[in-house]
């Protein structure tokens, strides 16, 4: 074996022959490159198309989220355009790196696939960055409390980015501090972080719940205070819109029997006294999302135009309200009233997880 190697080494190649073979190799390489130049071209086109798609996506999202800035909403400092410019620059760099890698002899398919993955990573990162909230937002809450209770509890929802590990510690209004009920913290730091107080999740944000309990004085302070904040564990204050009130019993005193049999939007009463009804009571904050449909007395429907209407003892009355999707939590009472009192309908509705809607709601009351 070794002898054979030695003999091979001993063979002299004439210099002219050596040069000629080198030339041949060079020419062959050039021809090979000419054949395969389409690969980087395809890659360039693919990445450009992907980048174009991402831009369209970004611009579209920007349009839907364009809102006037307000004191309750901080707009992101860096615009989506800047994100996309950086992303496209990096994508072009990726293409260059892939081309260099191919020229250096790294497997062509592997290089292109890696370039593709890098482009996906950049595009996804840009979409991710665009969908981040600059700061958590709280969901407006409209709540009426039963006056007869001793303790009053309520839940304020707030929306944080998925990577935000902070949580609401307490509520602050004037000189009142209400501690949030602690849910315990899940310590999983990995990719599947999911806090225990999450009530809903989207691709980029969690909707979480802060639960409070207060006595009558505390709730009265809350009702009277103009500025209410949810305070996070790191001290950041989130402005909160609260519309609270007590459901004073003297307001309700129309004698009726049971409200069973109703659904989300209607309530059924059997009257125990004669009543004249002349007004629809919907709190101001709910007027754009809750509307009165009709009142049925012995299966005959009346609308608001027919007011005032007289209802007699023993008649069966159905009142119907229509609720539309709005960016706020509602646990409040609406109703139809007259001089003698009110036929109430409790609206219990949670805000849908729709950030533009919630922003719209905040701006409306700001």
């Amino acid at each position, binding site marked *: 074996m070794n002898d054979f190697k030695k003999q091979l080494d001993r063979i002299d190649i004439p210099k002219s022959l050596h040069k000629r073979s080198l030339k041949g190799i060079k020419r062959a390489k050039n021809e090979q490159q000419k054949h395969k130049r389409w690969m980087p071209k395809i890659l360039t086109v693919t990445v450009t198309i992907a980048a174009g798609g991402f831009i369209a996506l970004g611009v579209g999202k920007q349009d839907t989220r364009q809102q006037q800035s307000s004191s309750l909403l901080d707009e992101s400092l860096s615009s989506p355009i800047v994100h996309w410019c950086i992303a496209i620059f990096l994508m072009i760099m990726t293409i260059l790196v892939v081309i260099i890698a191919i020229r250096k002899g790294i497997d062509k398919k592997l290089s292109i696939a890696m370039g593709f993955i890098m482009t*996906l990573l950049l595009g*996804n990162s840009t979409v991710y*960055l665009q969908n981040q909230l600059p700061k958590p937002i709280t969901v407006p809450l409209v709540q009426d409390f039963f006056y007869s209770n001793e303790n009053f509890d309520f839940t304020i929802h707030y929306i944080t980015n998925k990577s935000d590990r902070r949580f609401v510690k307490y509520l602050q209004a004037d000189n009142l501090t209400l501690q949030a009920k602690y849910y315990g913290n899940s310590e999983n730091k*990995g*990719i599947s972080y999911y806090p225990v107080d999450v009530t809903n999740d989207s691709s980029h944000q969690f909707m979480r719940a802060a639960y409070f309990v207060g006595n009558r004085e505390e709730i009265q302070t809350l009702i009277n205070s103009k500025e209410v904040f949810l305070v996070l564990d790191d001290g950041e204050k989130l402005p909160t819109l609260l519309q609270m009130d007590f459901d004073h019993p003297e307001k309700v005193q129309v004698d009726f029997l049971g409200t069973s049999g109703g659904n989300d939007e209607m309530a059924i009463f059997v009257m125990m006294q004669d009543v004249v009804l002349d007004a629809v009571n919907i709190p101001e904050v709910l007027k754009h999302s809750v509307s009165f449909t009709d009142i049925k007395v012995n299966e005959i429907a009346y609308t608001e135009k027919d007011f005032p209407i007289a209802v007699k003892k023993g008649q069966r009355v159905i009142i119907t309200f229509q609720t539309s999707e709005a960016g706020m939590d509602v646990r409040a009472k609406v109703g139809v009233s007259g001089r003698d009192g009110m036929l109430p309908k409790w609206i219990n509705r949670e805000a849908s997880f729709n950030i533009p809607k919630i922003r719209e709601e905040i701006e409306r009351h700001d």
Partner: protein
Amino acid sequence: MINFAEKQRQLNLLKWLTIALSLKLVFLNVYPYAFYVQQLLIYLAFMKSLSYFKGQSLVKKYIFIGIILLIANIVASNLLSITWHLVLTVSVDLLIILEFGKILVEIERQNNLLGSTARIMKQYMWIVLCVTASWTFLMNSEYDVIVSLLIVGAVLIFIVNVRLLFHLRSLKKNIKSKMRVVMNS
């Protein structure tokens, strides 16, 4: 014809590569610190395996990048950085294994074995690349999708790794049987 010492070296290379791949089968990502230890052990096993190879290879460079990524993971805190880290780590690990694939092809050639390594490595590459590409979407997905993508990806990577391990085992057996023939003759 290659000599006995060379074959012994190849067997050691395969042994340590098997250890590295076996370590990859355990998913310790749930426990952050265990993951660091696991990844370090895998890289050490790769280095040990590589020490039995005499030729030129890019493995060392990739391992170096992998270790830098591992250190960078300490500052990864949000979904964005965690996804970047995951995708880059899987890609670097793939590059390392593909480099070892080239070494395996070389070993097969030296032992005049009927080579299926090239084919297996190709499939390995495409499956891991698909998983990696799907994992780039983790940062923009809802919780259920994240969990499903992670589980499906992890299962696929597990399967291809097991397949590669079986292939390494058969390769080792073949080399050993050839050694026995040499020794007997």
